[in-house]
């Protein structure tokens, strides 16, 4: 189940965000995501794996709010937008044009984070959590 990996990646990105608040600590109440229909992520699965991933972590108790974003393509033959019938095909119903432009639906976006700042006690580890490795 790749939502486990997605959740891990999300938690890593959240840790990078936390780094930016040093030396204070953000206590997160809600993470607001946008998840497009044209991605590899199932919102339901993500909600489930999120709860497991944040247990006993600095994100414990943070709610994950997912705003689903439908897939919208733009037909480049006539400029109208359409939602493809997915497994039935991705051509535009108006002109049978292939799906060239995607207007929305590719979002895997942390839109915003709701939190309060607390004095770190004990102070956060001085080592950055997400070092970048030189290959």
């Amino acid at each position: 189940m790749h939502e486990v990996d997605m959740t891990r990646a999300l938690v890593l990105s959240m840790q990078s965000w936390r780094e930016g608040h040093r030396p204070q600590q953000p206590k997160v109440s809600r993470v607001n995501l946008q998840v497009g229909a044209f991605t590899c992520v199932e919102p339901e699965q993500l909600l489930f794996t999120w709860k497991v991933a944040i247990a006993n972590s600095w994100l414990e108790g943070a709610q994950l709010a997912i705003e689903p974003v439908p897939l919208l393509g733009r037909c480049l033959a006539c400029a109208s937008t359409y939602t493809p019938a997915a497994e039935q095909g991705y051509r535009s119903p108006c002109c049978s044009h292939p799906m060239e432009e995607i207007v929305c639906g590719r979002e895997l976006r942390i839109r915003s984070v709701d939190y309060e700042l607390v004095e770190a006690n004990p102070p956060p580890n001085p080592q950055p959590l997400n070092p970048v490795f030189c290959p």
Partner: protein
Amino acid sequence: MHMPLEDNLGLNLLAANQHQAAHNREHFDAWQLLCINVMSSPGAGKTSLLERSLPLLATDFAMAVLEGDMTTQLDAERLEAVGVPVVPITTGRSCHLDAAMVAGGLRLLRQRLDPASLDLLWVENVGNLVCPAEFEVGEHRKVALLSVTEGDDKPLKYPVMFREADCVLITKTDLLPYLPVQVERIEDHIKQVNPHCAVLRVSASSGAGIEAWHLWLHQQVAAQRSALLAMPAPQPSSAAAPLSLAR
């Protein structure tokens, strides 16, 4: 004091991975090599294609392979014999490679050679049509394989992979006479989700289509060289600053 705050981030859920991937790419550009991420479902023929192609390409390009497919039977000895080192990547049972794993593989490779001597770096990803499409590793090009035995509906069922690919190889075409599948339908389904990618028919067994595939590769290497010439001399950034995302 406890103040309710809201940070508008608007950043990708995979930002941490993308940050590492971008850093990998900075090094690749400084080394002036082209990195190709090879992806498919398990058994579509990634390893067989590399085994067919690399000895032929070795006359034109200096290459190395980062091998992330745990089940692979890659004949490392045969590739090493034509001067292509093969380095396994530890995936820790993950169903895809991420940028940090590829950075780790490169560190191992650097114990054996100077990557600046390479023209092409191959990454064989874990067999999976789902998440490798979303996890960048720093590659310049994505190549997706789809074997004719998988049926023609795969591009519609796993459209993200085929949308993201720069080149889709329809593999095992030597089996077409024995299958009810129509290769034109496979091609049409790929083109529906990605009208601009190259779609090539190949057989690692018979060698059919391999020349066109190699032509595509030569074009990509040439395109990357001119792209690098047009860029300011790449310098891997500021001792790899960790990603920091507040506000």
